[in-house]
């Protein structure tokens, strides 16, 4: 099988596994919705800056929880089996793409729930939605590799948090800026630079993951 076919098969496998148990998606959905509700109960009404910051904090923790599991849900023996039949690059690529899909679905649902519960006027809802999608893609691409690293290091969740928070902050800064532009309803052209930086960081992290994962995988 070529690399792309392997990636396709692995993604399908992940989707089927998820569909059978619906464990991750339901758990994370419940997590997101209850967090939004807790925030609503605590704040009642917030100004735009806090609204934006709160949304990204909820997304950050939801995505860490969602992606943290990506390398530990299958037992080591099965992982050994994958290693003997497929290219390690296919494994990381499939995980990244699968996590991107998962995060996009989660973020979309979270965004709708959040904006229904917390009424807030958005200047440019489409651009805000684009920033949500870009954000979930970026979270997926950075956290997948880091969860790979932390799963090799005995996988305690403290380590995952320590390793991933500094790495995600640059992305988060750009994301918050982009979404603030969307809330204020600035011209699209003013936000192009942020979008390009986000896409560039994604391309870089995925490339580095592809280069590094074969070393990480080998025990």
């Amino acid at each position, binding site marked *: 099988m070529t690399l792309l076919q392997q990636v396709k098969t692995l993604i399908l496998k992940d989707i089927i596994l998820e569909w059978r148990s619906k464990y991750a998606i339901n758990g994370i959905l419940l997590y997101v919705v209850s967090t939004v509700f807790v925030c609503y109960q605590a704040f009642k009404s917030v100004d735009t800056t806090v609204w934006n910051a709160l949304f990204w904090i909820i997304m950050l923790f939801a995505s860490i929880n969602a992606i943290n599991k990506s390398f530990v849900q299958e037992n080591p023996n099965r992982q050994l089996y994958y290693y003997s039949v497929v290219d390690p690059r296919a494994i990381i690529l499939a995980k990244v793409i699968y996590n991107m899909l998962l995060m996009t679905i989660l973020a979309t649902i979270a965004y709708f729930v959040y904006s229904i519960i917390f009424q807030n006027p958005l200047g440019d809802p489409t651009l805000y939605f684009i920033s949500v999608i870009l954000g979930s893609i970026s979270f997926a691409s950075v956290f997948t590799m880091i969860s790979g*690293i932390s799963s090799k290091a005995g996988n305690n969740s403290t380590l995952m948090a*320590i390793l991933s928070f500094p*790495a995600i902050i640059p992305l988060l800064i750009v994301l918050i*800026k982009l979404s603030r532009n969307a809330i204020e309803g600035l011209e699209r052209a003013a936000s192009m*630079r942020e979008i390009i930086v986000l896409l560039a960081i994604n391309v*870089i992290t995925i490339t580095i993951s592809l280069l590094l994962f074969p*070393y990480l995988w080998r025990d």
Partner: protein
Amino acid sequence: MRKKWWKILAVLIICAVIINGLLGPVPRLFILHESIRNVYFHVPMWSAMIVMYLISVIYSVKYLNTGKQEYDLMAIEAVNTGITFCFFGLATGMLWANITWGEPWPNDPKLNGSAIATLMYLAYLVLRNALEEEQKRAKISAVYNIFAFPIIIVLLYILPKMTDSLHPGSGGNATFGQLQMSNELRPTFYAAMIGWPIIAFWICSMRYRVRLLERKEQEIDS
């Protein structure tokens, strides 16, 4: 003598920079006044830090390619030295900020970026401590090191350029080149920018050799 010349050179450069930096003539600038002398000490700390981190990444790549433990030791010692210089850079920067901007920690993207970069390398050290087995530790931390480096470059050199910053060279502020960084400052400044990274490399290589000796001793004992 052939191997020592760069160390002597570095010491001479640093001595000259310190003496000239504290006593030499400086232009009278608005707000900055005499504190402009800090440019000889604050900026070179960052240059030393980034050179150290770069060396660390290069040795991590070398380690992954060859699997030689020596390269891993070099990578970790480069990070240790780099973090030390980062703290020096933060300390001198806070002193300077207190005088010119009125508070030691103004909300500035470059400050926050460097703090986060420090966190990232502290996380690297935590990751190393979390792993027991030597080879596994070397490999996983090398992977994290290489993964973190481009993010740090974005954080320190790309993001501050996009936003308003108090530092020169970002958000429409003039860079040192455009700002008539007067010719009185230039020679000492450039000398410092070269001298401190060499000193940092010297410290790093000494620590590396101590590590090698420690390892040898352990091998003899066991």
